[in-house]
């Protein structure tokens, strides 16, 4: 474990964080009535390494809606007067829609749009230049970006709070559950419980409820400190935050119980918990956007429960959405909860017997 664990951590880190953030999915809405010069803009985004144009949509509202739903990370809208203004007054705007709840991604897409605008301005300046027998009269063209950052500018504390909450909940509940169960196994008190009139289900539920309360206290603590001292913003319902946190805590309790069934002593339990803990930090999108992972490992984040918790919490806390908006994350967490609980309870009951 001492040799494998650090090596594994470094390998995971190297694979996940080795590259730059590229191939961010975006949509383009080209409303340019002439559809002539607007085409150059679409081509530039098609050629870009940073963005992947996954769809062409009709109209600004459709483009915006896809960003709002989180289906894509950004959208480019080419206004209906793009060619006209460019030809008439040598100036035009392109509209960039980004998701402000993902500040790093928003910044990258905006920067790329600005780079493309500057490049196009230069190209159009040459294109519109009038060549006479005496000289070339260049016309200065200016293409600007008008950025619509949905949910505004997210502060670092707002962007990282869901991750911190999730990690704290996972760490405390999983380690506490695993260690306490293993300790009871080690001390032999579990045998006492077996011989006592306490039913197995009561014992499991008792453990479960206790650590659930610990998890809730931890969430309260994180929220109080975050809101009170660092001005953490919660745009949505605080009750929804608790609900998704409870669901995530159930997943973590299941994991803790599962770890306890495979560990012989407390040290093993702690080490086994760390094995679950590391991918959560690296692959959940806590530090690094999951969109930035290399394509061959891009499926890993979806195996990590913390990914869904962070995503759901961001939906509530930074986007101000309700549970209906994050239903897919809730479903995924519920599935994880059912799986881990069934597996752990089965193994635990077998151990007790």
């Amino acid at each position, binding site marked *: 474990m001492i040799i494998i664990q650090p090596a594994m951590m470094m390998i995971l880190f190297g694979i996940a964080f080795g590259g730059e953030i590229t191939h961010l999915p975006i949509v383009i809405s080209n409303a340019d009535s002439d559809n002539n010069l607007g085409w150059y803009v679409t081509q530039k985004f098609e050629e870009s390494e940073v963005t992947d144009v996954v769809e062409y949509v009709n109209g600004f509202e459709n483009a915006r809606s896809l960003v709002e739903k989180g289906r894509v990370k950004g959208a480019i809208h080419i206004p209906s*007067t793009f060619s*006209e203004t460019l030809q008439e007054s040598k100036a*035009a*705007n392109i509209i960039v829609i980004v998701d402000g709840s993902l500040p790093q991604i928003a910044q990258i897409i905006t920067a790329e749009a600005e780079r493309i605008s500057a490049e196009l301005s230069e190209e159009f300046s040459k294109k519109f230049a009038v060549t006479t027998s005496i000289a070339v009269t260049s016309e200065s063209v200016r293409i600007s970006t008008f950025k*619509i950052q*949905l949910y505004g500018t997210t502060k670092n504390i707002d962007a990282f709070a869901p991750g911190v909450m999730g990690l704290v909940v996972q760490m405390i509940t999983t380690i506490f559950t695993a260690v306490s169960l293993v300790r009871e196994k080690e001390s032999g*008190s579990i045998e*006492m419980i077996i011989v006592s009139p306490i039913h197995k289900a009561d014992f499991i539920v008792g453990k479960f409820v206790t650590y659930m309360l610990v998890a809730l206290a931890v969430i309260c603590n994180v929220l*109080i400190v975050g809101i009170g001292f660092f001005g953490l913003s919660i745009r949505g319902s*605080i009750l929804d935050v608790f609900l998704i946190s409870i669901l995530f805590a159930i997943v973590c309790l299941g994991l803790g119980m599962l770890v306890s069934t495979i560990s012989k002593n407390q040290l093993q339990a702690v080490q086994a918990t760390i094995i679950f803990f590391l991918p959560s930090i690296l692959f959940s999108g806590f530090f690094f956007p999951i969109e930035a992972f290399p394509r061959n490992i891009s499926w890993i984040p979806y195996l990590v429960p913390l990914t869904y918790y962070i995503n759901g919490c961001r939906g509530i806390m930074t986007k101000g959405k309700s549970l209906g908006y994050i239903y897919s994350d809730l479903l995924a967490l519920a599935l994880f909860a059912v799986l881990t609980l069934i597996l752990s309870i089965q193994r635990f009951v077998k151990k007790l017997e």
Partner: protein
Amino acid sequence: MIKNRKKSIRYIFLIFFVSILLSGYLPIPTEAASDRFILQESSYSPSKVFPGDNEIAISIKIKNTSSKTATDVEARLNLPSGMRSSYAGSIEQYLGDVESKQTVSLLFYIDVLDTSEAKKYDLELELDWGTGEDTLEIPFYVGEKVAFVIIDTTPQKVQSGAKGVQVKLFILNNSTIEANDVMVEFIAGNGITGQTQDFLGTIYANETKYATFELDISNNVAKGPRTINIRMTWVQSGKIVSDILYLDIIIEGPSYIVWLIVIGVIFVAIFFIYTLRKRYFEKKELGDELEVRKEEMTNE
């Protein structure tokens, strides 16, 4: 015959000398305006001008059509009300000597005030030189600019400390022309952040559309009435035009509900901690009891 001829010659000489003598006192008629300088070409950039546009470059070409050189020519563009020079000296130019048949270019910079009327203006180009002056008329068109008006705002009061407040601005196009690709920006300054931009597409004449913003109001923002600048940018006749509207909004003190929630959460946390502590001690007692029973069993 000869006598009469001599008399005639004398008269002619007399008239000649008298006219020479009088020439010093009588004004010499100057050449008519159309006789000397003519307007050859005039243009302005941008080609479409609306009220509120600044630094409009007016290029004029004039030609000295006379057979004489005009010395020390000075040109001045006389502006009607609603227009002003962009900077000191931007409507005056010294041309020096303009030779016969020579064409000279003039460049002036003017600002069109917001209050100016949309119509055709004739700007007067006044040319002045040592022995005369000319006035030429320069045609200049100011187009109708779309006029936006904020007719309603919801809510009109926001609370400091509130997050994700959805503010809707109902904007009327109060003109006879359409505005394309309308972009709205809420320029709130410090203390008010969030999603402060919106895109409304085309707003036809007399049509109302609403812009939506999601604002986060800081706790530190000054309470009371506040005027917010709303920048409108749109495309009109192939030109990007912008204007500033003013929105009055009232910022109130923070909502007590937030604090009630915080206090509630603290109470819940304390309750959980208390319950856990109680359970811990109960469990410890049970453990001790089990330990005692275990010892008893071992002894037996």
